[in-house]
């Protein structure tokens, strides 16, 4: 039997592993930020997520008698991403459930790497949010904030994380606070205008940019996420189309609405820095497997994400819409791929 090898007989040397490691590297600033804000709690959270994801992947592939793919780092990346979108105060079993959901139902059920239509980390995040709405919307006040909690040393956080017991004298209400998206939403329901709401909660753009405020582990610091995102674009791991069109759409819609009715619509910068938008724009929406492949398709995809994010934030029942937006747009990827192909050389029109 003759083996036919087709040209090219030359390869550029790129690999899946290199791509995944680059994304993990790009997430390092955000991870560092999470540790800075939530101390040991963040460490336990992240380690649990990553190890459970890798374990789940190993077991699933083992069960299906398929070769192990742990070496390519995709499971670790899913774990890290999931950890970064979870609130710090989530108990361990929720984390484990989320991680297993991400790997098993988000990814392996579809045939493993490359076939999942939805972003695994985000689908797990949404399942957790819908199943445990209270736990998933309790945001710990960061260590650098006013709380000054001593839950942030190794032993007590372990206790808190695994047994769920708080140190004596502390109640969960006392150590949690709403995120800017959360309090503007609840205030809006009580008829308080956005500027007033922001003023009463001492909102500051600088804090939001650096990330010293409540939120999920890794999504608070826009600065750290931006650094990683720019690194990814510069290295050519992701393209600029999705993040740019995503962020631009949100900014555009926010500035238009804010200009028309500043009392009801938050300013664009608030939207850009708030919630999981940055994380979703640079790391979730750009997940290559669940996003369109063509440049034109990616722009459409990003714009769709932006539109849905803004609509849900503005009028929806949930304060944050970024993860729903990405998941919803993930549904449309096959159609976008099919209809947004570029014009082929030598043809007048696009197919």
């Amino acid at each position: 039997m003759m083996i036919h090898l087709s040209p090219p007989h030359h390869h550029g040397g790129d690999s899946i592993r290199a791509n995944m490691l680059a994304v993990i590297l790009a997430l390092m600033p955000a991870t560092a930020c999470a540790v800075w804000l939530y101390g040991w709690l963040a460490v336990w959270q992240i380690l649990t997520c990553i190890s459970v994801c890798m374990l789940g992947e190993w077991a699933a592939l083992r069960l299906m008698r398929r070769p192990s793919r742990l070496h390519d780092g995709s499971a670790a990346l899913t774990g890290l991403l999931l950890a970064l979108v979870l609130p710090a105060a989530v108990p361990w079993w929720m984390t484990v459930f989320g991680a297993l959901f991400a790997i098993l139902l988000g990814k392996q059920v579809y045939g493993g790497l490359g076939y999942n239509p939805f972003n695994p980390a985000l689908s797990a995040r949404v399942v957790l949010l819908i199943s445990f709405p209270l736990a998933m919307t309790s945001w710990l006040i960061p260590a650098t904030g006013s709380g000054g909690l001593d839950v942030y040393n190794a032993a007590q956080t372990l206790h808190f994380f695994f047994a769920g017991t708080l140190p004596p004298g502390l109640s969960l209400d006392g150590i949690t606070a709403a995120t800017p998206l959360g309090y503007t939403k609840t205030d809006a329901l009580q008829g308080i205008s956005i500027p007033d709401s922001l003023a009463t909660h001492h909102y500051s753009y600088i804090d939001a940019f650096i990330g010293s405020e409540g939120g999920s582990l890794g999504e608070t610091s826009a600065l750290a996420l931006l650094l990683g995102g720019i690194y990814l674009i510069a290295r050519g791991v992701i393209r600029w189309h999705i993040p740019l069109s995503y962020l631009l759409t949100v900014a555009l819609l926010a500035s238009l609405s804010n200009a028309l009715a500043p009392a009801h619509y938050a300013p664009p910068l608030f939207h850009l820095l708030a919630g999981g938008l940055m994380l979703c724009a640079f790391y979730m929406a750009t997940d290559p497997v669940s996003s369109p492949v063509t440049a034109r398709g990616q722009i459409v995809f990003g714009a769709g994400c932006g539109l849905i994010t803004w609509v849900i934030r503005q009028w929806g029942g949930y304060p944050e819409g970024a993860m729903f937006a990405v998941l919803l747009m993930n549904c449309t990827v096959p159609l976008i791929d099919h209809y947004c192909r570029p014009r082929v050389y030598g043809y007048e029109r696009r197919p």
Partner: protein
Amino acid sequence: MRRLLEHIWGRKPFDGGVVLDMHKDGAQVPITDCPLPEVLIHPLKQHIGETCKPLVAVGDHVLRGQNIARSQGYVSAPVHAGTSGTVVRIEEHPVPHPSGLGMLCIFIEADGEDRRQPLGVMMTNWLQRDPAQLRERIRAAGITGLGGAGFPTFIKLLRDQRHPVNTVILNGIECEPWLTHDQRLMTERSDDIVHGLAILMHMTGADHGVIAIEDNKPEAIAAMQDAIHSWQCECEHIASTSVRLEVLPTRYPQGSEKQLIQAITGKEVPAGKLPLHVGVLCQNISSTLAIYRAITAAEPLTERVVTVSGQGMPAPANLRVRLGTPIRYVLAHCGLDQLDGMQIIHGGPMMGERLKHPEAPVVKSTTGLLLIPDDTLYAEHQPEEPCIRCGHCGDACPIRLVPNLMADLIRDQQFEQAEGYQLFDCIECGCCSYVCPSHIPLVHYFRYGKGQLAQLRQERAFAEASRQRSEQRMARLEQEKAAKAARRQKARARSKVATRTADKQQEPPA
């Protein structure tokens, strides 16, 4: 102005493409002659199009340059004897083809005299000749695109009133790694090349001649610059024409005709059309030299320059090889007797084919022979992993296809859908496979898909023809049956009448 803007914006001269390690090891090695082997092997098809028909029989004595196989059909190029000698065999022999299958070849045993038979008169006064006459000479000389594709050259030189050619582009890009033969030719025979360009411009009536070279060949650029200058001094009388040198940034696959035209003129060749339709003629350097020789020296195409290089080659060489020389002989001349553990690539690493039999001869489309150790080659072909849809393949595609989606469709045997993604526009440059982080052999999938589609077409056509024949047969049988029935009825009627008349008393049977 456009160029300046592009320079500021840093626009790529064409879409997609990749930057490769060029490995132009043989760039400084002058062209030398490869000695004549004892037996030359001439395959009957060395071009795109119809197979030729032999004009000689076993035992015939032929001269170098004698036409030994006539072209059949329009898209075809005749074959000429590589040296003087005797036809010893006409039989199947391996040829450079990815299938490794053989083809009918004419074997000529050299008599060592190497006597020539010219094609006709030497047309040194080509400027006074009719372009149609020159075109016929090029056809008769058996010249094909020597850049590797092997499309008969004369077809591109059609003078069409509706599509006047205004620019002739000489393709001195040589964007494949390792290959250096065109670069050496431009350095060593720049004057002849410029004359060849002038012939092409005369034939097509073009006003502009462009010689395109990538910026990694400074010597060739300098030589061509001098040649253009001296030619311009020589022919000041042809004032309306202009010849210039275009130095382009190095990028693969700039040497592909369509991409080069886009890089130089900014225009795209419409799908399914020739460059003629955008007023451009694109010609390879080697082909241009062959045209120059065919017209001024009445020499048909019997030799070409081949680069012998690669990781497994200690000293790279640029050899002038007689067409039909067995590849094993060429390699032996370069000091490689032992081919174990070596793979031979026929052509460049990006588009060349792995050669299955070193006994195969050098043919018109042999641009280079690369010797690559087994391990090195297999390291380039790593096992395929799942597609992560990163889209790098689409970014690298010079014709803006979506390779990963096409490969998915082909893997799923949905060939017609893949065709809807313009599968047949793929030029198989290999950029997509080169950049793929999952090591998916995309080009291989596309070739498989194209082959399956062609087969499907063929089967459909055959089925349609069979159906028609079957229907005709049915109609005929039907007709015969009807005729028979009619005859029988007539006969019965007649016999009835006969019985009645013979036996009037008796009742006819019920």
